[in-house]
């Protein structure tokens, strides 16, 4: 399970095929509180799985449940769900305010709360000035913000965000990432789908990796990284006495190899990065060696992704 309750989203052996093409094959998954990245290349089945999880399409096999109930059969559960689609499509003939008002009302927000809530959302996403303009005239970035605003309109417990940063300018991106972090910190479940690794990495380190319609791995990036023994984690340490540090580290557990770069850096290969990191402070204290900088070279999402998919 990724994250922890209160909201529990489960996919139980879910599969989806279109004719002969298997888009998603037997995926089982549990998602709890916090931000989780659903990651996969284009065509990996990520969008199909995302839609299955959000109840937008019916699985060919298996079932998706939100807190134990099939989401697609209980539309009332959408009171707790916010959805931000990837597509830029918006009803161009409505204004931003009309669009939000309609969706806030449809989310079941009491009528006396609708107007203030719409005002809050417009303010929060810096759309107040454009509120009375038709959506057909909105820029891509404004559309993206409005999509996020409508997803948050009814204060949902669980949010599905499909490529939420598409088309945003750097400032809006930063704000959106901050908002996503805040939502996760508030205890909501935020499922973010993306094929852009650095983007996901900025939002979360908890990922579900989809490849060729299957869940390849799920968990924290570092934890997943440790599960790939054929590709030891590479850690770089900067020290004034690199040779002494190298000869010290080579004797430690989980260290598979040590190299000096000839200057002040030592590169360590470890088969268990978590254990290595846990033990390292004590070992360094015991050795009396001062390390100025520690940097993991390949426990980032990109490395994990390429190791797991061999791409």
């Amino acid at each position, binding site marked *: 399970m990724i994250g922890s309750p209160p909201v529990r989203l489960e996919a139980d052996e879910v599969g989806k095929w279109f004719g002969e093409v298997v888009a998603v094959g037997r995926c089982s998954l549990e998602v709890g509180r916090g931000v989780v990245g659903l990651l996969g290349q284009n065509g990996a089945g990520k969008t199909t799985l995302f839609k299955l999880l959000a109840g*937008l*399409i019916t699985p060919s096999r298996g079932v998706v449940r939100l807190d134990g109930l099939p989401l697609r059969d209980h539309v009332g559960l959408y009171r707790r769900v916010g959805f931000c689609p990837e597509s830029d499509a918006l009803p161009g003939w409505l204004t931003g305010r009309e669009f939000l008002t309609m969706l806030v009302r449809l989310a079941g927000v009491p009528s006396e709360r609708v107007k203030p809530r719409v005002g809050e959302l417009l303010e929060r996403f810096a759309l107040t000035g454009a509120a009375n303009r038709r959506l057909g005239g909105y820029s891509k970035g404004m559309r993206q913000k409005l999509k996020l605003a409508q997803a948050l309109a009814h204060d949902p417990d669980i949010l599905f965000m499909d490529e939420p940063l598409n088309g945003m300018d750097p400032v809006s991106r930063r704000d959106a990432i901050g908002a996503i972090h805040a939502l996760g910190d508030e205890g909501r479940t935020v499922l973010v789908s993306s094929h852009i690794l650095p983007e996901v990495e900025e939002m979360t380190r908890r990922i579900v990796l989809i490849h060729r319609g299957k869940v390849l791995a799920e968990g924290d990036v570092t934890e997943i990284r440790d599960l790939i023994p054929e590709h030891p984690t590479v850690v770089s340490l900067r020290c004034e006495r690199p040779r002494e540090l190298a000869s010290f580290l080579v004797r430690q557990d989980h260290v598979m190899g040590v190299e000096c770069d000839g200057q002040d850096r030592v590169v360590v290969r470890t088969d268990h990065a978590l254990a290595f990191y846990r033990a390292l402070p004590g070992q360094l204290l015991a050795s009396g060696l001062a390390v100025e900088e520690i940097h993991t070279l390949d426990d980032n999402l990109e490395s994990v992704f390429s190791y797991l998919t061999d791409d």
Partner: protein
Amino acid sequence: MSRDADAIVPAPLPDLTAARIVAAATWRELLRRRRLLSLGVLLLLPVLLLVAVSLWYPGEAPAGLLLALLAGEIYIPFLLPIVAMALGAPAISEPIAEGTLVYFWTRPLNRPALYLGRILAAALVACAMVLLSQAAVFATLLSADFGGVDLALVRLHAEMTVVTLLGAVGYTALFGCFGAGFKRPLVPAILFAFGWEPLVANIPQRIQEWTLRFHLRNLVHWPAEQTTDIRGFLETLLNRALSRDPVPVWHSILVLVLVIAVSTAAGVVLLRRRQLDRQG
């Protein structure tokens, strides 16, 4: 906030409330569509026709006959289906094709409420547009030299109003259902309105009853008089339009109501089964 499967399930929005909200937004959206302008121009044609008749044949064509002719040969076979096609067919298919249906789909509302709200708005706009056009026709008949107003003319106008309401709602419901079932609903809608309807409506005996056009025409009380050349010409056209065996009025109303009910139910079922396989 955690809950088990046996905990209280959040209720969907009441269907009437949801349908009302959807209908209000759809109404607003439809009124701003450019296609409304084209429809408005099209619906002015009967008025222009009357003006032309009054200029070329002043005092020759009686108002009742003209109104009946417009109802039987222009509103029922052409304007009602075209307006319903332009508003009803896209009511469901457009949000699916554009990818905006997802915003409704991910709200706590039942699919029938969504469907009814969209179709209701489309039918209301269709009714409003055709009724406005007929009001303009009636005003033109009163203002120009068409022989003045009598009870028969008022009655005919009232019948046309009923025909418009039933016809606009009927065609809109039917084409809306096509929108829920077909990716390009205009194709079957055109085939139905301009293939099936004229073809079958002109088959004698009871087969013609398998058209909306027949039952809509059956609801109008047609005048039968002729005195002048232009009147004779119009009479011939009208007779050709009416050459069929009438059925009781209640029979036609029942058929039209059934078409509305069955189309709506079928549309709801089709929308329920619909999957958002398109992105968005």
